[in-house]
């Protein structure tokens, strides 16, 4: 498929909660990279995220109640399915994920090696985040270098899986989605990208000890419960280009 054709069939989904300060720039950069179909899922923001995003040229879907980042993302993916988009790219509204790398993710997806491509930047994050990833990797058996990156590209099969009711059981967009993909034998690939620090606002998780503690307990329990049980003869792991 031609590059311009696949850009036309790709929907960029941005979950946004109170991102009025950054959303315009993020949408503009996405458009500059050639991706014109952008949907902002407004997660019941208290500020002017929705009208600002609309003025910047994005489609805006406003949730009547706050569902969290994953609930907002899933809404965007359901929208993509309704509208027959081939590919969904998800990225954060805070400007951490550089839109110029969208093409790398989509190209990798079209190479056919994976159902989901993740933009990884393992160097990011604090020591605390690195320790958290280490524990989660051990608990889940997933060896991807950047477990929590929300910069991802999904093909149609992966979209349908994560948009279903099993996806609605998840509270966060990261490890639970990977475990769901693994369980259904979908392939995940990571691609190295560079990311920047968020300029304004704060992480939804790594900003408060009690929230971090809840996130860790939640994710470790989910990882242990959903961990793939491997037979002695098979060594399938979700690692780099592989996959299950």
């Amino acid at each position, binding site marked *: 498929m031609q590059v311009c054709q696949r850009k036309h069939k790709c929907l960029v989904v941005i979950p946004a909660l109170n991102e009025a300060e950054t959303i315009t720039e993020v949408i503009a950069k996405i458009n500059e990279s050639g991706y014109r179909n952008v949907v902002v899922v407004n997660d019941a923001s208290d500020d002017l995220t929705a009208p600002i995003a609309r003025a910047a040229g994005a*489609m805006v879907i406003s949730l009547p109640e706050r569902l969290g980042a994953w609930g907002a993302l899933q809404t965007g993916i359901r929208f993509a399915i309704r509208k027959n988009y081939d590919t969904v790219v998800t990225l954060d509204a805070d400007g951490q994920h550089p839109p110029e790398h969208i093409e790398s993710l989509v190209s990798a997806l079209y190479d056919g090696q994976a159902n989901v491509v993740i933009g990884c930047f393992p160097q990011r994050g604090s020591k605390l985040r690195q320790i958290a990833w280490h524990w989660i990797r051990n608990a889940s058996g997933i060896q991807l270098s950047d477990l929590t990156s929300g910069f991802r590209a999904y093909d149609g099969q992966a979209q349908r899986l994560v948009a279903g009711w099993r996806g609605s059981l998840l509270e966060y967009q990261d490890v639970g989605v990977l475990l769901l993909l693994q369980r259904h034998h979908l392939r995940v690939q990571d691609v190295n990208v560079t990311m920047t620090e968020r300029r304004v606002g704060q992480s939804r998780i790594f900003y408060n000890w009690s929230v971090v503690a809840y996130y860790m307990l939640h994710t470790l329990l989910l990882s242990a419960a959903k961990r793939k049980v491997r037979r002695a003869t098979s060594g399938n792991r979700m690692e780099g280009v592989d996959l299950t």
Partner: protein
Amino acid sequence: MIVAVTSAIGVSVAIVIVLLIRGDRLRVANGLMWLIAAFVMAGLGFTPSVFDYLASMVGISYPPALAFSVAFGMIVIKLLVDDIHRTRLQIKHARLIQRVALLEYELKIVNDGEPGTQNDDKDN
């Protein structure tokens, strides 16, 4: 004395359940299990010898301990069943919110001509 207290609690709970259903505060389906539990409690209060017999059958020398254990087990099961049910409701709730948002967006396109998409609709 314990007979009177247990029976009174059972009968009181049964009356409260009926009043809640009567006042549209509780669905019949949800009240039914509590009503049965209340009658069982009242019944056992009136016939404590049943528990004495059951306790001796399983080797428990203090029959009320059996009653507490059974009651505790039933409460744990009930809470677990309720949480399973709550999980289903939370999924439905979240998906309905998403569906409302999607339909509101499509309605807005129809009414205001907001930027849409060139692709065809496909029902999900």
